[in-house]
């Protein structure tokens, strides 16, 4: 994995309703040289995806904290707009059915929490390098 912090052209969107997770992931990926945006709720992420182009989206499955699966909606939105954007879904609650559904909708990776930042970054960088 590249870790020299040199500027890279790829743009990443991080979507999570937990501010601490967003801040930590932003810092980590910005440290790797990526341009990073973040969103905390479904519609905020959808608005960004409608108006900006991203190379990678890292998205929590649940954005409301009350058992939703908003992450699946975001995966669908992305694949209606661009086949170029890679998507990683993260979840602490993922069942095999949801994992299967996320791949059916076009997710490139489904990661079960907890995962270290380095594990997430390894998957992210590999997906970006495959493009």
């Amino acid at each position, binding site marked *: 994995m590249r870790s020299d912090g040199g500027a890279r052209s790829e743009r990443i969107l991080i979507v999570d*309703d*937990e501010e601490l997770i967003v801040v930590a992931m932003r810092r980590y990926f910005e440290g790797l040289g990526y341009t990073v945006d973040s969103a905390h*709720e479904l519609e*905020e992420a*959808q*608005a960004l995806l*409608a*108006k900006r182009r991203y190379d990678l989206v890292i998205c929590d499955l649940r954005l409301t*904290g009350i058992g939703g699966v908003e992450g699946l909606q975001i995966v669908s939105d992305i694949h209606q707009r661009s086949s170029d954007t890679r998507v990683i879904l993260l979840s602490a609650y993922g069942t095999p059915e949801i994992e299967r559904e996320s791949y059916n909708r076009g997710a490139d990776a489904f990661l079960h929490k907890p995962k270290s930042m380095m594990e997430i970054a390894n998957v992210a960088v590999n997906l970006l390098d495959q493009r």
Partner: protein
Amino acid sequence: MIESALNRILQPGAITPVYQPIFRLNGGTPRIDGVECLSRGPRGTNFEAADVLFEYVRLKREESLVDRACIAAAFRGASTLPSSLRLGVNVHASTLGRDHGFIGFLEGTAAATGIALSRVVIEVIEHAPSWDGLSFQSTLEQLRQLGMAIALDDVGLGQSNFKMILDVRPDYLKLDRYFVDGCFADPHRRAVITALRTLARDFDAEIVAEGVETADDAATLQGLGITLMQGFHFAHPLPLDAPFWSAAAPSCHSQ
């Protein structure tokens, strides 16, 4: 869990107004005819960018709440601008069709900020076509009775089509930048502009060309009979403290 983004947008002072001058070119020096009041969301958030702000608002189906917040911010700021300037404010058609208290809100906000409603141009924008048509028409009629003019925004794109022109009967057709940008070198763009100019005349309306960014395009538009223009060639959207306003005041139209 963090605070809802909508709550942050609706906090007092969260919306920052900026004002883009609209110029009238009747030969000689361009004169400022009015401004379009534009909005920026909370600083340091994704919503500082207007395109993201309004996409989010439409997804949340809260156009009316945010339209009101933007107008209140725009009127408060505009009270320091020359009183001769027309003030264009953007309003979703769905707000006009569904928000039954909107007229009262406008009157109250104008009175509180000292803005004469006869200066106000309601720029109708629309992205969701489903609203109560009768209520929409009734609101437009009330706006006119109060002395406001009506503009149709983004003409030529999306929902701002011929049906909307018929429904709204606008005083101004705001020609989207898509048709303006590069019209100097593109006969097909010029053909669309010429057709819309003819249409505007038949409706007793004026065309405002948006997104004019070069002298060549401005001259071409003038040659096609378009006299109202806005865009970076003339002026960017400006905050109230921009020196432009004090320098520009003497060149404003007197009415």
